[in-house]
């Protein structure tokens, strides 16, 4: 029969060991949870219409489900998206570069890590295309982006022989840039704000129509979509970043990229991450 003091010591040691074991198990469980927790990638793009959210979600989630615990969550409106960026930290955000710069003023910890490219280029220009003669009072401009975005583009545009003063135009919001261009061709609008890619596509489709359209203005080069995160979350979000970066290596991933009008995601150089220009 062991001495009662020895017995008490043994019980105390066993208790301590049990506690340590429980602690270890708890830590393991927590860390496992951290890794198995779904990473959400939020997407909002003021440069285009938002009624394609379902197709984007389905396609991206099909790609992610093959090997990642990641999901895409497109966001309908600007205010909800800004709220999410402010409050939900352990997430990636796909947004327009223009929008990123707006948000980064308030949240300097936001950094762009990937950028979409198309035909090897990470920029595009918005063009103002019109068909003369214009009505004397107000022209109708077909656009696919949000009003804020359109105003920003028009305010910084170099015009060819026309001026667009506030009140001299009204906007017709359409889902796609090609819709905007076709609206001009078929008389539903006097002018269209569309990307240079879309105008080139129209030139290939409709040579006659293309020849009747005038280039009225050209924007500064606009950066394509960027993937943004909070600097402190870089390590935790690495699996999701890798999943995005390798999208162009599978059919389903390519489909998702094409739906966004991109060919691939490329890493952004360090200088830009720190706030410099690429």
């Amino acid at each position, binding site marked *: 029969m062991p001495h009662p003091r020895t017995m008490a010591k043994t019980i105390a040691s066993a208790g301590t060991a049990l506690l340590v074991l429980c602690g270890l198990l708890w830590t393991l469980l927590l860390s496992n949870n951290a890794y198995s927790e779904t990473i959400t990638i939020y997407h909002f793009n003021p440069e285009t219409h938002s*009624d394609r959210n379902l*197709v984007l979600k389905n396609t991206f989630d099909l790609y992610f489900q093959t090997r990642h615990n990641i999901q895409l969550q497109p966001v309908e409106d600007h205010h909800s998206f800004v709220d999410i960026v402010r409050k939900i930290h352990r997430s990636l955000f796909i947004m327009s570069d223009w929008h990123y710069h707006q948000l980064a003023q308030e949240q300097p910890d936001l950094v762009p890590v990937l950028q979409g490219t198309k035909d090897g280029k990470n920029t595009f220009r918005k063009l103002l295309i019109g068909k003369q003669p214009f009505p004397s*009072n107000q022209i109708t401009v077909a656009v696919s982006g949000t009003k804020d975005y359109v105003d920003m583009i028009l305010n910084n545009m170099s015009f060819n022989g026309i001026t667009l003063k506030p009140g001299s135009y009204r906007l*017709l919001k359409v*889902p796609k840039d*090609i*819709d905007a261009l*076709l609206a001009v061709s078929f008389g539903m609008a006097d002018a269209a704000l569309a990307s240079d890619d879309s105008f080139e596509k129209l030139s290939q489709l409709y040579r006659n129509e293309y020849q009747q359209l005038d280039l009225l203005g050209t924007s500064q080069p606009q950066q394509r979509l960027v993937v943004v995160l909070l600097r402190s979350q870089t390590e935790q979000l690495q699996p999701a970043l890798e999943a995005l970066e390798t999208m162009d290596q599978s059919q389903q991933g390519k489909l998702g990229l094409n739906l966004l009008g991109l060919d691939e995601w490329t890493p952004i150089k360090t200088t830009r991450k720190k706030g410099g220009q690429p």
Partner: protein
Amino acid sequence: MRTAMNAFLVLMIVLALSACQSLTTASDDLSRNATVLVINSDATVPRYQVAEQAFRRSLHPAQLAHLDLSHDPLPVETLLDYLQQHRPEVIYCIGAKALGSVQSVAPGIPVVYSSVLSWRQFLKEPNYYGVTSEIAPAAQLAWFKHFFPGIKRIGVFSSSANQDLIREARISADVLSLTLVTETITAEGAPTERANRLLSQVDALWILPDPVALKSPSQIKKLFDLAHASGIPVLGYHPVFMEFGATMSISADLATTGRQAALIAESLLQQNTKSAPIQFPAGSDIALNLKKVQDYRLELNPEALNSVNELTTAP
């Protein structure tokens, strides 16, 4: 104490009633001052709701009054009652029931309309301005060519009901360097032989609005089955054709249609009546079946995919 409580309750009731009274008056004033009357054929129908919401968002709320004709067995009487008390400057009709009722009343007020399949019969009405239900045939063809550059010969069924449409489509096809191949279908004749003859000459079959070719769901299914058996993809003008097995459909984006109607109404309110009597929808809604694209070995332009609204893989 009890008397005081009763007096307080009476006072509260009087205050509540007077508040209701002032709300009713405000609402009446709002309706009386409304310059645009929106008449919805059936506000419970989602496609009508989308158009109305987009229209409302484009104009100032104080300008708008609303009539919902759903479950209304006497829409003309309802409209007459309204117009005896109010005088809007513009009426926006959503759907055929609303437009038909306004036409019966002939209020002498400019009318804007959308979601009306029989829009052609209103073309000659003075002061009527509409947005059609289908995307312009030329725009549909442009989208087909954009998505499937390998498709060169497109087949359509022609009947006495769609001759104008075919003529217009043929001109557009020429401009796009496409060949439109037509085959006449009559109400009486069996379509199988003619359909097979058409399908043997084309790369794709394009479904156009046509009460003869599309006279019943069973006939539509038969045409789709024949096309499938011949390995020919079908391209439609409405998403309902995706359920029959179409490879792609291009239809009007209803919110854009509502916004177009709002711009027309705005022009009319500004006494700028230079709007065309009819406009095609400026926004498109594109559904694509990737399984069919693969089955028919179509060359799909990946750059077109950023225009797709709905992607399916149904067999």
